[in-house]
């Protein structure tokens, strides 16, 4: 009898310990949520206005304060202006963040607001995980007017506004004026051709200086080359390519990739391009070991600190055989901020989220963005002295070209993740020398066929 009691007590203790370690199962969201009812910021109760509300914000960087200082500053300013609202930031490196958001969408635990890549954001909208922000825009006409229509359209599907632009994406080549002066090379200007770039490469190579710092271990770091795609008629062909009636492996794109292969053979890229990543390529540029760096507006502050007045910005070479418009710059909507559909279930939370978005797309946030070397997402450029940030000033000067136009989206952001990865793979494949131009383009065609 005693032994039975002893065994039973032992078993019960083990089972209780096991159960005690578990947490309540999250609410399943296997069914599509009901269509969200119109909720405006005026429908909150008095008690909701007084009780602190916490909204969660999922960011695509592990350390928002260090890596996205403008967004961090905006969040802090918002919290200071709204003491009853706290923003809880959940950050992870981009790939990890996207994976986490997909997992959380399955368990119904998405953050209230989160950054998301365009392709999976659209899939989330189709699966019913996102809130329609049309009502937010209708109830905040000032915000709606400030936002460029093209940026709103980038996250709109048949009238469902599933996201709003996180920030503009401004990308190209930063360059070090000091190195150009040291080796007697003319600085690149809007309209500098590919042949002129090759001449620069020859000079820099003879002095063992990498012309363009690139890191193939970060496959996504090919921004300037994605802009160059536009100069070969990308947007005239991509719809047919995705529909199956055209291919990436065509004479125009092959000519484009042939140019990259020429640069690679001429030694334009670092000799260890295959083994360094984006951050190491950035260090190479900041330390004066390369003349140019493929990057974007987010590096303006770091480049100002390292190079000072020697920082310049360039949209990349034009091509005499390019069939597209050569006067292309890149200022497009980056990946959007999206809002979880579950926010609509809580009026206080909806109010807090709407207040955050209204603040984020307002003039004060635009001023904070410029002060932190960012480009405001809204059509409003505050009067901020940028003379202490020479790189940022150079970027703004480059953006001021009236006859240069931006496409509506960066080429990789309108295709699926698989095709996007294939595009990065193909570009670096040619730079590293793994693929011929035709092989590289074939990689993308294969990805489209398998998509």
């Amino acid at each position, binding site marked *: 009898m005693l032994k039975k009691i002893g065994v039973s007590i032992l078993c019960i203790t083990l089972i209780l310990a096991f159960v005690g370690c578990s947490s309540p199962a999250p609410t399943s969201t296997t069914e599509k949520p009901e269509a969200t009812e119109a909720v405006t910021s005026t429908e909150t109760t008095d008690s909701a206005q007084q009780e602190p509300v916490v909204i969660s914000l999922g960011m695509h960087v592990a350390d928002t304060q260090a890596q996205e200082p403008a967004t961090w500053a905006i969040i802090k300013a918002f919290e200071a202006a709204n003491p009853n609202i706290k923003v809880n930031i959940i950050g992870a490196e981009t790939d990890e963040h996207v994976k986490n958001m997909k997992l959380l969408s399955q368990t119904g635990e998405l953050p209230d607001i989160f950054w998301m890549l365009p392709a999976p954001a659209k899939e989330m909208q189709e699966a019913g995980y996102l809130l329609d922000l049309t009502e937010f825009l209708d109830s905040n006409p000032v915000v709606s007017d400030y936002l460029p229509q093209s940026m709103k359209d980038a996250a709109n599907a048949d009238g469902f506004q599933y996201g709003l632009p996180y920030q503009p994406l401004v990308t190209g080549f930063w360059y070090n004026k000091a190195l150009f002066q040291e080796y007697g090379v003319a600085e690149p200007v809007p309209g500098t051709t590919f042949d002129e770039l090759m001449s620069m490469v020859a000079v820099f190579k003879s002095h063992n200086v990498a012309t363009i710092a690139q890191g*193939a271990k970060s496959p996504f770091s090919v921004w300037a080359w994605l802009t160059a795609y536009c100069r070969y008629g990308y947007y005239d062909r991509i719809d047919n390519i995705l529909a199956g009636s055209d291919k990436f492996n065509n004479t125009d794109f092959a000519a484009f990739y042939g140019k990259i292969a020429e640069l690679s053979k001429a030694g334009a890229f670092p000799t*260890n391009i295959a083994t360094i990543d984006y951050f190491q390529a950035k260090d190479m540029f900041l330390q004066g070991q390369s003349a140019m760096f493929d990057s974007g507006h987010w590096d303006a502050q770091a480049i100002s600190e390292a190079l000072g007045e020697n920082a310049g910005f360039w949209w990349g070479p034009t091509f005499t055989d390019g069939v597209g418009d050569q006067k292309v710059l890149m200022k497009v909507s980056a990946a959007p901020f999206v809002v979880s559909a579950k926010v609509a279930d809580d009026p206080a939370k909806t109010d807090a989220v709407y207040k955050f978005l209204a603040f984020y797309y307002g003039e004060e946030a635009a001023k904070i963005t410029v002060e932190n070397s960012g480009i405001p997402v809204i059509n409003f450029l505050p009067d901020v002295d940028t003379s202490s940030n020479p790189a940022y000033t150079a970027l703004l000067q480059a953006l001021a070209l009236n006859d240069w136009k931006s496409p509506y989206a960066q080429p990789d952001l309108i295709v699926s993740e698989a095709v996007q990865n294939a595009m990065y793979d193909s570009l*670096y494949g040619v730079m590293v020398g793994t693929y011929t131009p035709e092989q590289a383009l074939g990689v993308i065609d294969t990805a489209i066929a*398998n998509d």
Partner: protein
Amino acid sequence: MRCLSSTRNKLIMLLPTLAVYIVYIIVPIFVAIFYSLTKYSGIGKPKFVGFKNYERLFSDPNFSVALKNTIILFVVAFVLLLFCSFLLALLLDSKLKGSTIAKSMIFSPAIIAPIIVGIIWWFIFDPQIGFLNSLLTRVGNESWRTMWIGDGTLAPYSIAFIYFWQQLGFITTIFFAGLQMIPNELFEAAAIDGANRFKKVIHITIPMLKETIQIVVILIITGCFKVFEIVLQLTNGGPNHLSEVLVTYTYLTTFKAGQYGYGMSMAVVTFLIAIMLSIGYILIPKGRKTAEGDM
């Protein structure tokens, strides 16, 4: 404690661990098999496509490269680890001066996080700024400078060497523990019969370590098929997938390209290869023993 020795009570005591094992190890295998038969981006509902993902594996050149690299990694690491760790364990067992400190130093790479191991060896193997090529230049062997990583030729061997370096101490420790279990009388008796050191190793040590060798082989097999962080940090599977191994290519396909179904088909294939190797290694000697017994 006779109350705990009955079969029923043993089963009851095993139940919690068994439940955890089933939920976190066994069930995910079946979940992966399910998703491998679907087209799924991680969002919404999966779409059943049958064996299309498996058919695609045969025509995917990157998968072939990943499989080839994993086999290279396995063969090189297996040979190096098995023999070097055994010899090292014999050396440590001979109670030379400083063997205690040597044991700690040999084991230390095993406690370094794999991602840090990748970073350390990047600084050694990078063809441009790495220590190895710089050293070769300094000692006048500039012709020996090569792409230790950065292309598909030597990268798999470099990864195998790093894995060997990281695991050597751990496997040596297992062999060393096995050596301590061998009764000394056997060696004394062999010495009386005139056996030299080599004969003692062949006729006493190795047969007595049969079970330990079996465990070590299984550990090496499963470990080689799980190499991930080293590749991720050293080369990220590049350039252009030339240094991918099965796990890294599965990760890339599943989480970066958003092709969960296709990625799971790779995971299932990886699992099957590892399990066939492990079970084959265990069953073949048993089959041989049975055949010898029948004779």
